[in-house]
């Protein structure tokens, strides 16, 4: 998913869940920030680098893919963009342990971890809610891919066809993948950018949906393809339907976080929207465009009657830097960083507890001597403060 959904659509979902205009702006800003909070960004703020929620293209190109490097990549991408569906998914007898571990990191919606993510944000900051909305929405868009570099799971071959409506007829058009990083996707001709095939299991080119380019990120896309793990079974990815469920699930989750609903059921994707709202949303989702920001913005502004400012990555950096070490945890970005570390910590712990070492070690903090990565002291201090 991109800025159009993570920022503008999340704003709309927050409004429909009952949050005010200003609260909704904070939530959607945090949701979009999850795609921007890289190590480069954090190092500029002199903030803990372990709070990174994404990696820039060049950071990935330069990323180490040895054991520690892969664990770092997996922690970031599995925690924020490819939340695993079932860490205990049934596997076949003849599969090796290494293959099973990767298979169990495949992302999907309505999983236990999706519920745990929303639960983690309950009674926390609006920034935590925003991060949870990002994670939740991505489980729909990024389903069938894993947030770890893996060819055997994430590879997509040339067998990929887009399903379009043409003069009232349903037609299948072959998708052509190019590998030009500067090239633009062209829905009219069916040419899309994807990462280059690398015959190395752990190449960063095989991370997430890189091989399928941005197909999972476009709300209008409907396509069939053969996932590498799928035993030659074709999968239909219906983005307009998935994105609608994602939107409804965000509304439900935000109602729960706001206290309107008593429970959040990851299985429930019915937000009780009015017929007009549903039609409006479905029409935005199915419009053939690579960026639906303008449509979502107009819809959001019609709901609130307020102007939605454009997303600006730098909006809160000055506040964080000026606050200094003593009080920067109480700034907008300080709360975002704490929420990001909590989410990463929770997901890593769940993966580790399932016996899967792909995200590395996790140690339970029990108030004794501090072990583990030093950056996480911030999280311990914040927990102490709330006590």
């Amino acid at each position, binding site marked *: 998913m991109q800025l159009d959904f993570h920022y503008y659509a999340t704003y709309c979902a927050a409004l429909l869940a009952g949050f005010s205009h200003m609260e909704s702006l904070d939530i959607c800003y945090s949701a979009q920030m999850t795609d921007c909070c890289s190590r480069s960004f954090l190092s500029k703020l002199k903030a803990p680098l372990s709070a990174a929620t994404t990696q820039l293209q060049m950071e990935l190109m330069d990323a180490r893919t040895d054991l520690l490097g892969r664990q770092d990549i997996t922690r970031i991408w599995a925690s924020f963009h490819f939340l695993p569906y079932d860490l205990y998914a049934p596997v076949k007898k003849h599969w090796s342990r290494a293959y099973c571990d990767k298979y169990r990191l495949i992302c999907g919606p309505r999983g236990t971890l999706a519920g745990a993510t929303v639960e983690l944000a309950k009674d926390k900051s609006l920034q935590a809610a925003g991060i949870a909305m990002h994670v939740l929405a991505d489980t729909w868009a990024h389903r069938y891919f894993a947030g770890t570099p893996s060819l055997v799971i994430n590879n997509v071959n040339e067998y990929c066809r887009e399903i379009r409506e043409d003069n009232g007829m349903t037609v299948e058009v072959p998708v052509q993948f190019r590998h030009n990083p500067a090239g633009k996707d062209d829905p009219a001709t069916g040419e899309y950018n994807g990462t280059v095939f690398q015959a190395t299991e752990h190449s960063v080119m095989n991370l997430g949906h890189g091989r399928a380019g941005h197909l999972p990120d476009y709300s209008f896309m409907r396509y069939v393809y053969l996932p590498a*793990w799928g035993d030659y079974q074709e999968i239909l990815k219906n983005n307009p339907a998935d994105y609608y469920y994602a939107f409804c699930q965000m509304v439900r989750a935000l109602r729960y976080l706001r206290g309107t609903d008593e429970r959040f059921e990851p299985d429930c994707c019915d937000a009780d929207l009015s017929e007009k709202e549903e039609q409006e949303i479905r029409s935005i989702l199915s419009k053939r465009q690579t960026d639906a920001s303008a449509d979502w913005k107009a819809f959001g502004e019609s709901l609130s009657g307020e102007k939605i400012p454009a997303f600006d990555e730098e909006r809160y950096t000055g506040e964080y830097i000026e606050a200094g070490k003593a009080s920067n945890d109480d700034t907008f970005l300080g709360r975002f960083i704490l929420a990001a570390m909590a989410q990463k910590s929770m997901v890593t712990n769940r993966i580790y507890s399932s016996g899967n070492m792909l995200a590395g070690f996790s*140690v*339970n903090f029990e108030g004794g001597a501090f072990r583990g990565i030093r950056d996480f002291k911030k999280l311990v201090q914040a927990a102490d403060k709330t006590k």
Partner: protein
Amino acid sequence: MTVFQRIKNLITGLLLIIGAVVLLTMPEDGFVIIAAFIMVSLLLMGLRYLFYYFHMARNMVGGKYFLFLGIFLIDLGLLTFSMTDEPRWALILYLLGFHAFSCVVNLAKGIQERHYGAPAWKVDTVQGIVNAVVFFFCLFHLRSPVYFLWVYCAGLFYSAAVRIVSAFRRTAIVYIQ
């Protein structure tokens, strides 16, 4: 990292240092040793791909590619073994390719980080420049094999240092219930 992985990193780091020292002390035979190392690497890579196929890729759509790749690499390793007359070119091409690629990636990352205002841009830019210097150094000394040996050994020392430091790094994520 598990204790075993830490020990493995430490031992590999020490072996790389020993290897580099051996190469530096025997510059005459250095090229032959490196060429032999590349041949063995090709054979091992071939075997690794075969293992990868039976271990994981056989479950993957199109996974047979790795079966054929493994066989091809083993064949290539055996072929290289029979062509030991000009081992220096293998090393020259490896070093030129590696440093050119690293230079481009480091400089591009430095530019991106500078755009973000991240202080790390200086480190990456310096790394890029060092790689460029090494690349041109190698390019202008194609007829002086001993320099290539030095550059190669410097790379081995660097890899060893990274592995040894990794062996002692704190790596666990903290979780608060």
